[in-house]
């Protein structure tokens, strides 16, 4: 008996009441300025569809800005039948869930070898994914107890990467490419994937490590063209990569299906010690 059409709920069904807060670049000093500032907030609230609206709090911040808290009623309707949910191919897992899935599904540590290949010396991307430090509030793969990370750094030659991956028993190889001059990232990625194929041809059951590339200029849908298993684009977080690796390499076991609680934002001092 779930309703298909709903409105925001304040304290009565259908009252449409919401709360918003925002800042406008207007002064809040003299009585005239205060009146104008509140009027400006009311105007914005009105344009946002709040009717009636009430400015319950206004406070000047420095000489040029004012902060507002506004309550009001919106007339908008939410049509639940029109809500679409985009699903990713793999569930987003918390670090604990990733570890559990590797432990139960793989039964040993998952080995990841990472590198920047070719002449690319920009390790910012691979380090952000691999270093404990991580980024965007998520710890890097080194933080995961069940993942063993071998970070080869920058300007690694492809044959060296293939050889080292074999020595380390890599389950996955992560390659970061930032430099894109003359499509170097595409050329390098293809060279890398064919070298791994030559070293361990794939037929039926997987042989050779899972190949993952990442970088701001890659098209995430072009994995097949590059001969790799997965491409991560701009804004990828370590948690997404870890979740994907667990999904792709550790068979699912009961209780590790994911709660969508990945992330959980341990941001240090907004990047302490950078």
């Amino acid at each position, binding site marked *: 008996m779930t309703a298909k059409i709903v409105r925001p709920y304040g304290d009565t069904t259908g009252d449409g009441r919401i709360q918003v807060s925002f*800042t406008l670049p207007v002064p809040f000093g003299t009585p005239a300025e205060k009146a104008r500032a509140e009027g400006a907030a009311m105007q914005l609230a009105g344009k946002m569809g709040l009717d009636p609206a009430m400015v319950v709090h206004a406070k000047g911040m420095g000489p040029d800005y004012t902060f507002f808290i506004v309550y009001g009623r919106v007339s908008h309707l939410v049509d639940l039948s029109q809500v679409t949910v985009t699903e990713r191919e793999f569930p987003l897992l918390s670090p604990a869930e990733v570890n559990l899935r590797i432990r139960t599904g793989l039964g040993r540590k998952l080995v990841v070898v990472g590198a920047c290949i070719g002449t690319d010396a920009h390790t*910012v991307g691979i380090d952000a994914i691999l*270093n404990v430090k991580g980024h965007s509030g998520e710890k890097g793969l080194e933080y995961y107890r069940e993942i063993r990370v071998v970070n080869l750094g920058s300007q690694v030659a492809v044959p060296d990467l293939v050889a080292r991956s074999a020595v380390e028993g890599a389950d996955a190889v992560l390659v970061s490419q930032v430099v894109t001059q003359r499509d170097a990232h595409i050329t390098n990625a293809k060279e890398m994937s064919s070298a791994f194929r030559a070293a361990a041809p794939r037929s039926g059951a997987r042989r050779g490590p899972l190949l993952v590339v990442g970088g701001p200029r890659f098209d995430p849908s072009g994995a097949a063209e590059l001969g790799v298993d997965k491409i991560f684009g701009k804004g990828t977080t370590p948690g997404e990569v870890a979740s994907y690796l667990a999904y792709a390499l550790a068979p699912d076991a009961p209780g590790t299906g994911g709660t969508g609680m990945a992330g*959980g934002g341990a941001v240090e001092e*907004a*990047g302490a010690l*950078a």
Partner: protein
Amino acid sequence: MQTRLNLDPAMVAEARALAAKAGQPIVAMARTHTTVSVERAVLRLAGLQGADAEGMPLVNHLVDAVRATTGLEHGVALPAWDALLTGGFDNLAALAGAAARGKVAFRIPAGPDAAAARAAASAALAAGIGRIDANRMQRQRMIEQTSEPRKPWIYLIVATGDIFEDIPQAQAAAREGADIIAVIRSTGQSLLDYVPEGATREGFAGTYATQENFRLMRAALDETSRELGRYVRLTNYASGLCMPEIASLAGLERLDMMLNDCMYGIIFRDINPRRTFIDQRFSRQIHARAGIIINTGEDNYLTTADAVDAAHTVVVSQLMNEFFGKEAGLADGQLGLGHAFEINPAVPDSFLLELAHAQLVRELFPDAPLKYMPPTKHMTGNVFAGYLLDAFFNLCGVMTDQSILLIGMMTEGIHTPFLSDRDLALENVRYVRDAAGRLGESFVPAPGGFIEQRAKQVLGESVALLRRISAEGLLTAIADGTFGITKRPADGGRGLDGVISRADGYFNPASEILEYSERALAPDSDLTAAAQTGAVR
């Protein structure tokens, strides 16, 4: 001597003795080695600035050229000043330019030539360190002309990536009540083996630490300090592969505090442990001389491990940081040891546990300007609950007399703080400070009660861990994954190739001044005055 936690003075003394035992071999290693960054710092202190067209600094060119010919076992100074004197170069920049083009034949001078090179290098370094001394006095004068803010000092962060955007934001934050401005560095600067040059307008989630950026921001905050009648301190990060150089630039440009942890780079950035410890000792000698307060990074351990289970690793790291810091010449008043309010709020008695941890650290380090970090790990996106948690953090901070409070943002982990987030955060801390600022004097945990018991337990666990570390060696402990959860072997990580064993005739004109200098210049106002009654020493 009375304490609020009735800590056993013998146990506290044992903890310090164990930390010293664990640290001694590291100090011995640092005294017999140098690094490319230490040698570059010598050149920076002698005034060598500038970079080539590709942005590679001249100090890198000169050190690399010397290394390629004579090696660095004797230090960069002897061959560099010898070439400067005998090669007819106008200055170090001209020498470095020629060296970069392979046009300089370096040698290790002997006899009168060696004496001349030593004398010239020593004079250049005396001038550079003289500038650091003058800056220290200038800071003192600025504080006298404006005023010293009351404790706890309020620490706020800016970081847009563009120094010219950072400046008005920092000035606005100071006007809003910040006593300390920290400019976060661009992501990954730790891993660059050179310091970028000049004013920078692009960075990844932060602004590059450069000498010119330091100068610009300090000048702007001086202007704001005078406007507000309150000295606003500037903080940056002496960490990563260029730690000694950045410490030197901080001294030369009168920065006031520097993040400088003994193990952070090793654990969180996979920088080689030996490189880190050697670089760190030189950096701290500079900080000591410059009157800079260091901030250590123990809060980071609590973001990777459980804040209850790992509480003792914070204390152990603080004791190690204290030992290394004092060995390098830092005074108690310069040891901004770090810790954090990171216990899961769902844990029963979590606030009591936080009070126990914070009070323990206060009593262990009564004269240190402790830096207390707000919750980040359990900030969930529920900004309303987060605001409450930040208020409890502020309350714990004033009750346990913390010195520096990094102000928590209710939108932690969501976005770079909005102007309004920052304003609300300051309103929060102002309320707590005004309403409960004197609560600390009445905060006496019940003898034998939960808080006292917990503090004693953490101290006991710390001593047990220190026993293990001092028995097996700090480098082994780090390799075993004792701190954080990452294993960092002594010969792994970045930067080991920049570590050089000193030869018998090693000469470092900066170290000659710093090792034997009269450490105690004028004491820095109230930093040395312990306000702590009943402190354990």
